[in-house]
């Protein structure tokens, strides 16, 4: 009896506290105060802060402050804030949750470029059933990075940097074999080759789940249907992915890579024991700090040329009282002119179409930025900028498919069994297909 009473009182106390907290008002200072959330490393916060200072100084209606969250915890942090009723006004969104969050009502489905003369590229526009919900601030594609010293030492010519001259998959494997050495200097072509004692690998393909989509496309397959409503993973997609794992399993030219983490560049070129590896455009950003002299080329292809676009989107969050001001700020923030730091360093490519077509602008962000110039700039133009515009380059699934975070979780866990050879990709997909379908349905 008494205990029940105590529990009842405590329940009531919790609720009252909650109400008091919910009613806490906020003061205003005449200017619209916006909070902008972003991920990334603290150095990025500094460059972002510089950009925000410019914005705050150039007008007196809106003031934006930034909060930064580590990338791995980004989504849960934002959800905690949302549950507590203090979500930021706007911010970056995990690509994989963008459409799901819009459906949950966490993101306002605002086209921040509605009625604007120029818009970001179509390939980096998030659409739910055709309706625009967000744009990526950067437009990234994948490339093949290579260690120039290792190619020189083996006397192998550098990989091709234009789509027209791109390697076919078999050529890629052949070159990789010439660049793979065991402790005795043998290559996989030698009979005495010791696969357990490899000191230099020829190739590394980033197996982090979402990047595997490119190999499905390259082999003429698909992950998702065009309308984003169903799971495809057809035979061609499965074969394409299997080809990637076979680099390690069959050809002994790649290190084992479970694909459970996104360390692409660092486990490939960055680790100093791989001659060439695939990863996103953002790897340009490492060039400044790296001791390794590396260049960039186009991806090899299987049945057809393929690449995928990516890039973190920005969105207006549901809690905000000032959606118009938030959209105005995001538009300003997404303009390459105003957010030059990440573009100059090499982490981002510009999002707007004209930066890929106007020669003066191209020169400004490619030839005149040191991290791209050292690749050199000419190869960057053909292997990255041209590829970004090419029709063979398609948006990744998350631009038009809901719940890709759940799909991704399942793929990351299950594909590692294909990576270590205990199952084939076909077996893995057969096993997880119901789970993928259920995850997509939500």
């Amino acid at each position, binding site marked *: 009896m008494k205990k029940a009473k105590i529990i009842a009182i405590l329940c009531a106390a919790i609720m009252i506290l909650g109400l008091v907290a919910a009613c806490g008002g906020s003061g205003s200072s005449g200017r619209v105060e916006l909070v902008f959330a972003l991920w990334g490393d603290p150095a990025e916060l500094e460059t972002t802060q510089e950009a925000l200072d410019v914005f705050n100084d150039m007008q007196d209606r809106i003031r934006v402050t930034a909060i930064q969250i*580590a990338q791995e915890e980004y989504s849960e942090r934002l959800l*905690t804030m949302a549950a507590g009723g203090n979500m930021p006004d706007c911010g970056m969104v995990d690509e994989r949750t963008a459409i799901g969050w819009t459906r949950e009502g966490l993101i306002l489905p605002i086209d921040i470029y509605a009625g604007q003369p120029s818009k970001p590229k179509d390939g980096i526009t998030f659409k739910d059933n055709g309706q625009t919900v967000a744009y990526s601030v950067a437009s990234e594609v994948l490339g093949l990075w290579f260690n120039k010293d290792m190619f020189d030492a083996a006397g192998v010519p550098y990989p091709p940097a234009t789509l027209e001259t791109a390697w076919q998959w078999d050529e890629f494997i052949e070159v990789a074999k010439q660049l793979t050495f065991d402790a005795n200097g043998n290559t996989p072509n030698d009979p005495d080759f010791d696969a357990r004692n490899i000191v230099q690998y020829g190739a590394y393909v980033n197996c982090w789940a979402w990047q595997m989509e490119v190999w499905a496309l390259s082999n003429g397959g698909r992950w998702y249907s065009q309308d984003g409503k169903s799971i495809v993973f057809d035979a061609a997609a499965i074969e394409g992915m299997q080809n990637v794992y076979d680099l390690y399993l069959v050809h002994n030219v790649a290190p084992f890579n479970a694909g459970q*983490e996104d360390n692409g560049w660092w486990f490939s070129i960055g680790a100093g024991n791989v001659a060439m590896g695939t990863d996103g455009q953002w790897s340009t950003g490492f060039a400044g700090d790296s001791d390794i002299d590396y260049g960039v080329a186009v991806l090899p292809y299987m049945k057809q040329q393929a690449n995928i676009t990516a890039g973190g989107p920005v969105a207006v969050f549901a809690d905000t009282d000032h959606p118009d001001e938030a959209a105005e700020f995001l538009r300003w923030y997404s303009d390459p002119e105003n957010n030059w730091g990440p573009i100059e360093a090499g982490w981002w490519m510009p999002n707007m179409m004209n930066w890929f077509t106007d020669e003066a602008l191209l020169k400004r962000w490619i030839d005149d930025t040191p991290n791209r110039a050292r690749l050199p700039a000419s190869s960057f133009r053909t292997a990255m900028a041209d590829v970004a515009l090419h029709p063979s380059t398609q948006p990744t699934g998350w631009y038009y498919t809901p719940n890709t975070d759940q799909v991704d979780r399942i793929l990351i866990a299950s594909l590692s069994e294909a990576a270590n050879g205990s199952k084939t990709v076909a077996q893995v997909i057969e096993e997880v297909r119901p789970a993928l379908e259920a995850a997509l349905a939500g």
Partner: protein
Amino acid sequence: MSGITNQTDIKIKAPGFGGLQSKKRTKMIFDIVSFTCIVIISALVLLPIYWIFRSSLMGSLDIFLWPPSFLPMGTINPVEWQWENYIIRPTSYDFWRYLGNSLTISVPCVIFGTSTAISCGYAFARLQFRGKRFLFALCVGSMLMPAAVTLVPLYMAWTAIGVVDSYLPLILPFLCGGGAFNIFLLRQFIRTIPKELDEAAKIDGAGYFRTLVSIIVPSIKSAIIVVSLLIFITTWNDLLQQLIYIHSRENYTMVLGLTAFFGTFKADFAGMFAATMLTIIPCLTIYILGQRYFVEGIVMTGMKN
């Protein structure tokens, strides 16, 4: 592991000598075997910690070299120990701030948790009251309930109250008895103190609180140190809860800062290991300072039933 089973085999075979002389010899052989075992296993136990230290002094590229070098040296940056890995920019891993934040959580937790655990342990050990068995059963029962179960509801409650990005959800629970295990431990310990001491105090006119403070507490010092250290370790290392309740970087704790460092700079492996080393050093220091009381403390708790 094969080493261990071999040693056990020897043990099984060794006895069977007769006479006093050989008995002594058997004992000596046992001691030598035990000692060798302990030395080998403790070397294995320390290996992962050494590996953090070793990797923290190498160039990022050398960490992945094949064959791996046991000492912190590589081919790219041979021999030179890269102490500069420890010069981590405060914007990436703000050691002093994170240390301060971790202490801001752990110290109140230790103080509140230990004192409330003493009070509860005392009541359970010494006082007679209605519902004692039931309450004690509830208490011991909660020890068996994985804390993870209450994670989601508690998280929802705290966010509903609006206490987010604060240390309160991490500290306040320790005002509530400091964990059933600690209550249990202190109760066991208090039961080993002769009751006559309490009664003498009572005759002198001391109330229950006075008895607790002046008689019980001084006689359970080592148990108090044990409980304090246990609470310290639990709160210091509680990644899951900190991950959920702490948002802004300036509120990060040591383990959270480390996780964020992995998340953001997982590329910078040498820096990552240096940060790991920096994270475990405070733990190690506290433990080394207290370990003499600590191990003895539990050993003497008389963990009988």
